[in-house]
Structures are given as structure tokens and as C-alpha cells.
């Protein structure tokens, strides 16, 4: 250990290090193993082992913080931090990656692009998410962000023979690179203001200036453009429907949940750190963005016939809801953001899981009509989809209600009554299109009677998602405690 890589650095880095090493090992294993399909199961098993090790290191982090009574541990001279916030989000990423890996096996076999690189990319994207959520230096955050983004560009285009996948990857990459350009321009102005790339120094320089100072405003504006793109908030949401529809459905699931959660972690660190002093500037902007996101997301989802596109617009509206928690800004609001991200993870993954299960040979299974009569063909899946749709709409006793409850509570507590009313109205609008799917499943005539296949991985993944969606809704206390720990920043 040198003075530039100490014991503390190693300890804080451990999850990211494990993910990176296991990701590279996955690539090596895929190269060495005979490329037969049955050996790919070993790769999935290896990925689960990797996540187990990472989970163990995250658990060790939590116990270390609790035993020593610390709220955070700073490493790499202020570049990386280990606090409740980063641990919470890393658990979310871990759960996402495990579920996505479990359902990808059969799906990629059907699509005919079952390459081991996919599992390596999942692990390496997750390591990028780790650095994005735990980084406190502009350089670390930027490199983590691009690590995650480039993995996703590749994964979205993974179905090489499918035109829609190519097009989705192209659009996602071009718009993603464009927004990265704005983001680094904002970073350059932040660096110019403070002379350092650490978030704490930048926060001090923002606090020392008037919030409406033109240079501070320029930094804020350009950074916010980049941030809003990553969470697919209006008016930078154009990439989301195309990318979600064209990408392989398992990648869409990973993208809609993992990338969004990581981007929100990044967004929270920036808004509550360097930009905290400029709240009077960005609060109105974010209110407008949140309302627009809910508007565009909910209204556009009504007319969609493709379920993936519908879920894309719905996730745009959910991004608006999560922003409301940040706008409220008090402890309840931040706790609401954390619990909403957790809840959103499982319910959105669940909805995509059911679509993946519908994918069979020669049948795409993505249109709302394909869900027709699901009650007769696969009643288990219909019930599960019902649970996920109820949760997405925010109806008790599912988890979605808990998330929305805390967001609304925080809005009331901080006096944003009009915003809360608008959000409540949009909940009603959302119920319409979620229930259109439910009605199609339960009421419509059977279009074809073939049964649905379900691999073991799929069953485990679906059980976990549905189980947690109901559990958080029925008994939210332990999860609220977990969200509370994420407030220590």
C-alpha cells in the first residue's frame, strides 16, 4: 500500500473493484469456454457469484459505518466516498443487475444473440454505476458516467441483425454524446469558478457567489441539460421511447431502472452538493421540468400501442415524480426519492419481465394486443402484471403507493400545494392507460392458446420482483429504514 492507495481507499473501492474484476473474468471465461449454449449457464452463475461478493462487501461497508459511528468515509483524497447514500443506491443497482441477468438467458437464446459479452457488459455497466453514485470528484463522476453510458450503447445495439436495435443504439448514442458535451461544458465552468474538481470545493465557490451570477448560472444551466437528459426528463426525453422500444427487452429493463437510478444518484449529489446554494434558481426550473415530464409522459402514453413505448413514456412521468421529491428538498422529500427509486426499480422490472416472458419464437409479444387474454393463457403472469400495473399507478396496498405517498407528503410539508394537485391529477390520468393493459389482459378474447415458457431464472426473478412490490406496499417499515439511511450524506 502506498500513500496514494491506502487501506481506506481499498476498502471504499471494494465493490467497484470486485465488479470490474468479475466483469473482466466473465469476458475471459466466455472466451475460454466452449461456445455451447449450456455453458452459458455457468456465466449466469458466475455473475450471481460476482453479485454475491459485491453484496457482501456492501454489507461490510454498512457494518463498518455503524460500528465506528461514522456517517461517511472519504477515499482517494476526496474522489470517492462511502456513505449511506452510495450504499443504498449500490444495493438498488445490485438487485437490478441480478434480476436482469436471470431473465436474459432464455431471452437472448430466442433472439439468437446469446453472447457471453452481454454478462460482462452488465457487470461493467454496474461498476460504472458504482463510481457514478459514490464519486465526489468531477473526473471520477464523468468517467463513471461514460463507463455506464458506453456499456449501454453497446447493449442497446446488441441485436445486430435487428434494424430497430441498430436505430435505437444510434439515436441513443448521438443524443447521449450530445448531452455529455453539455455536461462537460458545465463541468469546465464549474472548474473555472473554483479551481478544483472536487464537489466540496465547487460547492464552496457556488456559495460564495450570488446565485444569479452569470457564470454560476451558465454552469448550472449546462450541467442541468446533461443531467436531465440522463433521467429522460422533458424536454430532453426524445431518446427514451426509441431506445426503449428498439433495444432488447432485457436491456430496456436494465436501462429503464439501472441507468435511471444511477443518473438520479448523480443528480442528487450535484443538486444537493455544489448547486445547493443556487436553489432559488433551479427550483422553478425543476418544477417546470417535473410538470412537463408528467404531462408529456402521461398524455403520450395514452395513445401507445407498443407496451415498451408505453412503459418508456410512463418512466418519463415517473422521473417527473422523483424530481418532485428533490424539489421539496426536506428530509421527507429526500426519503421519498430514495424509497420511490427502490419501489420503481422492482415494479418497472416486473412489468418488463412479463413482456420478456411473452417473447417466444416468431412472436414479438410487445404490442398491447399480444397481452390480450393473458388471463386464460398464463393466469400467473396476468396476476403478476396486474400487481405491477397497480403499483405503477400508485394504488395501495402496492409499493407504488408508498413511494407516491412520501413524495406528496413532502410537497405538502414544504408548501408546494399547486404542484401536488397537478401531480395528483396526473395519477388519475395514468390509471387510465395502466388499466387499459389490465383490461386487455382480463377481458379480451384469447388470441391464441399457446402456453408460455418460463425458465427457472425467470421464475425466481418474477417472484422476487412481485414479492418485493407487494412486501414494500404491505409492510414498508424496513424499507423506509433503509431509505432513511440514505439521507446521511
Amino acid at each position, binding site marked *: 500500500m502506498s500513500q496514494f492507495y491506502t487501506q481506506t481507499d481499498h476498502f471504499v473501492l471494494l465493490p467497484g473493484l470486485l465488479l470490474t474484476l468479475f466483469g473482466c473474468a466473465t469476458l475471459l471465461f466466455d472466451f475460454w469456454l466452449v461456445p455451447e449454449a449450456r455453458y452459458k449457464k455457468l456465466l449466469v452463475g458466475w455473475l450471481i457469484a460476482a453479485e454475491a461478493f459485491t453484496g457482501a462487501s456492501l454489507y461490510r461497508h454498512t457494518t463498518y459505518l455503524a460500528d465506528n459511528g461514522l456517517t461517511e468515509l472519504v477515499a482517494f483524497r476526496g474522489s470517492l466516498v462511502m456513505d449511506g447514500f452510495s450504499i443504498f443506491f449500490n444495493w438498488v443497482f445490485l438487485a437490478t443487475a441480478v434480476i436482469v441477468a436471470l431473465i436474459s438467458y432464455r431471452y437472448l437464446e430466442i433472439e439468437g444473440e446469446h*453472447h457471453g459479452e452481454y454478462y*460482462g*457488459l452488465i457487470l461493467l455497466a454496474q*461498476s460504472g454505476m458504482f463510481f457514478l453514485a459514490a464519486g465526489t470528484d468531477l473526473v*471520477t463522476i464523468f468517467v463513471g458516467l461514460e463507463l455506464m453510458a458506453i456499456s449501454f450503447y*453497446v447493449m442497446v445495439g446488441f441485436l445486430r441483425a435487428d434494424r430497430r436495435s441498430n436505430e435505437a443504439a444510434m439515436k441513443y448514442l448521438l443524443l447521449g454524446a450530445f448531452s455529455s458535451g453539455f455536461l462537460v461544458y458545465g463541468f469546465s465552468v464549474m472548474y473555472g469558478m473554483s479551481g478544483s474538481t472536487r464537489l466540496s470545493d465547487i460547492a464552496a465557490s457556488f456559495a460564495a457567489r450570488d446565485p444569479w451570477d452569470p457564470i454560476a448560472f*451558465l454552469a448550472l444551466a449546462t450541467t442541468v441539460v446533461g443531467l436531465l437528459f440522463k433521467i429522460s426528463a422533458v424536454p430532453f426525453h426524445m431518446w427514451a421511447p426509441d431506445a426503449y422500444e428498439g433495444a432488447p427487452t432485457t436491456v430496456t429493463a436494465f436501462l429503464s431502472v439501472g441507468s435511471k437510478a444511477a443518473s438520479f444518484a448523480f443528480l442528487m449529489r450535484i443538486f444537493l452538493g455544489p448547486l445547493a446554494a443556487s436553489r432559488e434558481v433551479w427550483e422553478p426550473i425543476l418544477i417546470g421540468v417535473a410538470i412537463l415530464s408528467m404531462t408529456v409522459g402521461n398524455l403520450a402514453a395514452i395513445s401507445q400501442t407498443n407496451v415498451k413505448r408505453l412503459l418508456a413514456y410512463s418512466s418519463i412521468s415517473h422521473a417527473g415524480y422523483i424530481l418532485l421529491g428533490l424539489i421539496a428538498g426536506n428530509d421527507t422529500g429526500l426519503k421519498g426519492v430514495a424509497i420511490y427509486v427502490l419501489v420503481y426499480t422492482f415494479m418497472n422490472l416486473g412489468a418488463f419481465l412479463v413482456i420478456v416472458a411473452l417473447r417466444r419464437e416468431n412472436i414479438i409479444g410487445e404490442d398491447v394486443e399480444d397481452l390480450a387474454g393473458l388471463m386464460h393463457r398464463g393466469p400467473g403472469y396476468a396476476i403478476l402484471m396486474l400487481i405491477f400495473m397497480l403499483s405503477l399507478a400508485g394504488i395501495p396496498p402496492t409499493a407504488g403507493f408508498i413511494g407516491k405517498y412520501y413524495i406528496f407528503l413532502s410537497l405538502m410539508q414544504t408548501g408546494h400545494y399547486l404542484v401536488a394537485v397537478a401531480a395528483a391529477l396526473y395519477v388519475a390520468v395514468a390509471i387510465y392507460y395502466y388499466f387499459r393493459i389490465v383490461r386487455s389482459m382480463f377481458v379480451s378474447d384469447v388470441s391464441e392458446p399457446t402456453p408460455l415458457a418460463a425458465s427457472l431464472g425467470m421464475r425466481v426473478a418474477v417472484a422476487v420482483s412481485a414479492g418485493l412490490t407487494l412486501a414494500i406496499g404491505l409492510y414498508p417499515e424496513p424499507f423506509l429504514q433503509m431509505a432513511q439511511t440514505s439521507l446521511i450524506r
Partner: protein
Amino acid sequence: MDPILFFIFAAVAVICAISLIVQKHPIKSALSLIGVMGSLAILYLLLGAEFIAAAQLIVYAGAIMVLFVFVIMLLNAGEEKSPARPSWFAKLLGIPLMIALLGILSYVIQRAAPEGSLAFGEYTGGAREVGRALFTTYLLPFEITSVLILIAILGAVVLAKKEL
């Protein structure tokens, strides 16, 4: 001496940038971008960033742009077919609007930027300083970057190879 050099190469950079967005054939755009990068490299030298200037020429102009030119050749990209003429309204409004925005931005920057001029020779950040920083303060991002490059290679192979 410094302002003269700055003006010459800033003008070259802006002219090449305008040429990049105006030219019809992608190869001419690529050559314009190489022009921008070359003039920026001279500006970096003027700012004392010796290592970055060399890296700009070797990596950016010498590798990335070569990759672009190679792909243009491979795909036999022809001239861009403009489908319909952009409306005269857009052209009438777009260019003055952009100039106005840039004017406001320049005024703001002029007012807000710190005093003092940057003379050549007062500070040089050469390979030694960059190397020292990369392996001490910025060790973590440096190592993550290696994974980033791995993913780029992996992605390029997975996406573009005919038979995997």
C-alpha cells in the same frame, strides 16, 4: 506576439469549424475537423500545455480522425442529399439569433472572467506534471479509464464483427 498567434489560429479554428458544418461531403468535414484540432493544438502550446498539445495531435487528430476517415472510406459515404431547402425564414432567423446569443455570452464572459492575461512561458504543464498527477491524485479515474477502453473495444467487436 501572443495575441497575433492567438488571432491567427483562432481564426483558422473558427473557419474550419464553419466549414465542418457547411460542407456537403463527409470527407471534407473530416478534414475541416482535423484543421480545427491542429489549430487547437497550437493554442494549447500557447497556453503551456505541452503534453496535451502532443496528445491532441497524436490521439485526437492522429487516431480518432483517422478512424473517422477510414469509416467514411469503408462505407463509401457520398455527398449528403439535402431533401428540401431549409425555409428562408429559418435561415433568416437562425444565423442572427445564434450571433446574438454568442454576443451576449461573450459579453458576459468578458465581464465575469478574472483579470490578468496569460503570457506564454509563465507556466508549462508538461509530461512530468501530468504524469505525476495521473498517478497520484487522479489514480482512481486513470484506472477506471482502462476499463472504459476495454468496453469500447468490446463494443466495437461485438457490434461490428460479421460472425461472433
